[in-house]
Every structure is written in C-alpha cells, then in structure tokens.
C-alpha cells in the first residue's frame, strides 16, 4: 500500500510540472541582466559597489602607473603586467599601464580594491573567449573600451512558476 501511494504521489508531482513554465535561460538569444555597471571600489570609504566581476575597464586619464594592481595580483593569478604606452599623461610620468591576461585572471576583483585612483573597475562583459592564448591578453588600449552589450533577461516569478523573461 505504501509503495502504491508513493508511486502515485511521485507521478502526481511530475504531472503537475507539465503546466509549469520553462525556467531555462536561452543563452545567447537571451542574456542575464546584472546589477549596476560591474564591480567598483571606493578607496575613500573602503567599500566596494555591488556588480558583476567581468572584464576590467581602465581609465587612462586616471591611471598613474603606480603598479598597485599588479602587486595585488602577484600572489593570486599574476595576470597583470605593467606595459609601456605611447601616451603622455600628466599623472603618469613613467607611461606604464596594466595589461591583463584573461587566461590567468580569476576575476576576484582584488586589483580593483587595490587601486587608490578610481582608475580600474570591472564591467558586465563576460564573453571573453578567443581562439588563441594571445587573444586573451588585453592591452591598455583594449581595456579602455567600454563594453556595449544588451542584457535584459531577469528571473520572473508568478503562479505558473519561475522563468527568465
């Protein structure tokens, strides 16, 4: 008796699911929407701003070439190296800026926490795949580019279940 009622209970629970909406996110047609413009850090208050830890963005007009991001990454992934740039900035006497190897980066965001000049943030861009290892190395010029991506899918919940609408 217990066996029969158990099977009926399980089947009943399964049949109810026919009416439930599909929860699967149909990537890449749909892309998840994230909070804010990516992870940022305010060195004055010492607290971060919530956001996705995706690809970095480097503000050339603020970077001083102090290497703190590179030092922060030393014990973690060693993904950041300082390279020479052909630009002249008043605050950057040595003309060096970070270059990030996304083959090594673990996206922990501790380099953003280390930057005292609001020069290095993270963005919502996470599609970084490349056919070669060299393609994963982002130069300061590439890091400067603001990502242009459309993300609008969010989890919606109603009586018929949750869905990525």
């Amino acid at each position, binding site marked *: 008796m217990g066996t029969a009622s158990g*099977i009926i209970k399980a089947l009943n629970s399964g049949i109810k699911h026919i009416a439930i909406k599909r929860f699967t996110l149909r990537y890449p047609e749909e892309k998840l929407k994230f909070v804010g413009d990516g992870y940022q850090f305010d060195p004055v208050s010492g*607290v971060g701003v919530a956001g996705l830890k995706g690809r970095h963005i480097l503000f050339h007009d603020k970077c001083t070439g102090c290497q703190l991001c590179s030092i922060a990454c030393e014990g*973690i992934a060693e993904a950041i190296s300082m390279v020479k740039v052909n630009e002249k900035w008043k605050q950057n006497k040595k003309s060096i800026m970070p270059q990030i190897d996304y083959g090594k980066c673990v996206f922990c965001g501790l380099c953003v926490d280390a930057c005292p000049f609001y020069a290095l943030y993270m963005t919502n861009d996470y599609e970084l795949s490349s056919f070669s290892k060299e393609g994963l190395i982002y130069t300061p010029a590439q890091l400067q580019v603001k990502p242009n991506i459309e993300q609008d899918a969010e989890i919606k919940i109603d009586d018929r279940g949750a869905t990525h609408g």
Partner: protein
Amino acid sequence: MSELPPGIKLEKEDDKIMTLNVGPQHPGSGHMRIIVKIDGDYIVSCDPDPGYVHRGEEKMAEYRNYITNIPHLERPVIHDSCNILYPYCLGVEEILGLEVPERAKYIRVIASELNRCVYTLYWLAIYGIFLGHSTMFMWPTGDRELLIDLLEKLSGARVTHAYFIPGGVRNDMPANFEDVCIRQINYFEKRIKQYDSIFYSNPILKSRTIKTGVLAQQDAISLGATGSVLRASGVDFDVRKKEPYDVYDNLDFQSNTLKSGDSYARSKIPWLDMLESCRIIRNALEKIPKSGSVRVKLKPNPKAGNVETYKRVESGRGSLGMYIISNGKPEPYRVKISVGSFRNLICLPYLLKGEKLGNMPAVYWSLNYWPVEADR
C-alpha cells in the same frame, strides 16, 4: 554493518575475493579512489584512498598575505565558497583584532546560508543521478539557479565569490536586494517542498536507502563524524547552535536530527537544513540593520603578533575549522584546514562492510563527501 541475508557468509581474503578499483576518475566516486574487495556481490572490505586532487592549499597559504589568501582558499569547495572562507575570516579578525560591523555580520549569514543551499542542491543532484533518479538531477540543478542569481547580485560572481574578507564583506547589498531575495527564497522553499513527493517518498529510493549503511549513534561519535552524518545518527550537534558565531545566536532556527542513521536519514538531513536555511535568511533580512558600514578599512599589508587561533563554522558538509598561526609577519605561519568531508570519509569502510556493491553509491554519496575539499 547491516545484517547479511541468511545463508551468505563472508569468507576470508583468498582467491575468491576480487579487488575492484572504483575511481579515481570514475564518476561514481568523484576524484578519489575506493579500493573495494568483493565476494560475489557483497563487499568484504573497502579502503578509501583520497589524495588524487591534493593541491597544497595549506602550503600555498604560507606564502601569501592575509588578503591574497582569499581567492585560493575558496578553491577546495567552489560551490560552498562563503562557508570555507568564513572560519578563515573569523580567525584573521581575531588575530588582527578587527571588530566587524553589525550589518556585515548579517550579510555574511545570508550569503553563507544561500551558499549552503547551493552546495546542498549540487550534492542532491549528484545523489539523485547516481541512484538513477534523473528528475532529481534536473530539478535541483534548475532551482540552484535561483540562489546563484541572488549570490551573483550580491557578490558579483556566480560561483567563486571571494566575497568574505577579514573585517566584513567586500561590498554592501545592492538596492532592492531584500525584496528580490524574499521573493526568490519563498518560491525556492515552495519548490524544494516538492522534492519530498518525488524523491523522499519515492518507494524505489526508500527501498535502496532505508537500512543501508547504518551508522549507530555511538559509532558516529567514536568515528568522529560531523555535520549531516552525525545528525542523521541522532546526535544533536550543530556548530551554529553549540558555538554560535557572528549573529547566529540572535536568529530563530533549529538543528534537525533523525534517529535511524541510515543512508535515507543522511540524505534527508541536508534537505531539512535547506528549509531551515530559508527561515534563517528571512529572519536575518528582518533583523538586519538598515544602514551602516559593511567593512573595516584594512592596512595594505596587515600584520599580527605571535598569536594563534582556531575557529570553526557549520558548512554544508559539517564543521569546518581553520587553525591559523601568526609569527608577526604579513603571511600566516601556518593555516591548517580541518574539513568535514575528510572526517566523514573515515566512516565509509565501516558502513560498506557487508553491503551489496550496487548500494555503494547510495552509501558513499550520502556521506556528503567532497573529494577536492578533503584533499585540500
């Protein structure tokens, strides 16, 4: 340890006994090897052989300072990363003398409870698929997305959050996180209640797990089991209750125990814990201070004196402790990680003796064992 059927006698180790290596790359065991000796269909003895994915996390921790240790110390259990960083942060806060803001303590509790559910769902999915219940693989994997979405809003990463830091958390909760969290937790609770009808009252699951791999209460204590394995054997031990850390003593919850100590009880305790986690999260969101700092400002290279500390928390797999020794340098002198997975593995040879080989996944995965964490 269960009784053999009448007429079947376990023989001594001789030519009739076959040695079978399960793993270390076999999906039935995760990244570890179980050397099983079988007589026909019955297991005579079993020798778990962990260490295949040893990564030297403890040694690595001696070469990095207290902050840069964060991203690699969460690697042993990436889907329970908040809970493995929790004892480390508590310990470092003690030796550095940091006072964590009240709001950060509540955020930590919320994040670690969400993460415990994420881990448990992942484990439940594996448990389901190894018992041949593919629906139980699909449902938890889908529902896990609800919680991963919340953690991603909170910390900015889906799996390896690196969210806890000595002195608080990395960032404050985003705007209207509370509402989204309550909405998704309520729906999640409704969803996991359905697991009872499709999985836990399923007669096929019951026949495979009830009375297999029974761990008696006294054995559980003497073998040093922890977490869900200990509580399934009727010992009421939950670190959150017995040694409350952060704000767990302010929150309203209970620790679940079952008496039978078999695979079924061990698989049900984490599910009951998930329902309890939903209560804790809702309770914490009510009591959380509405504003305030979430992080103490740290010096770039913090140093501690000649001190040592041991802190433990309740992770998805039992009590997880970290013993940190400082000798005045920016790097810790020693970080010893004591994980629940390894302690529960010791029970395996006792549980599998005399069981059928086909019941091995039911017993092995019910131990809530995670090979990568045990090897560290």
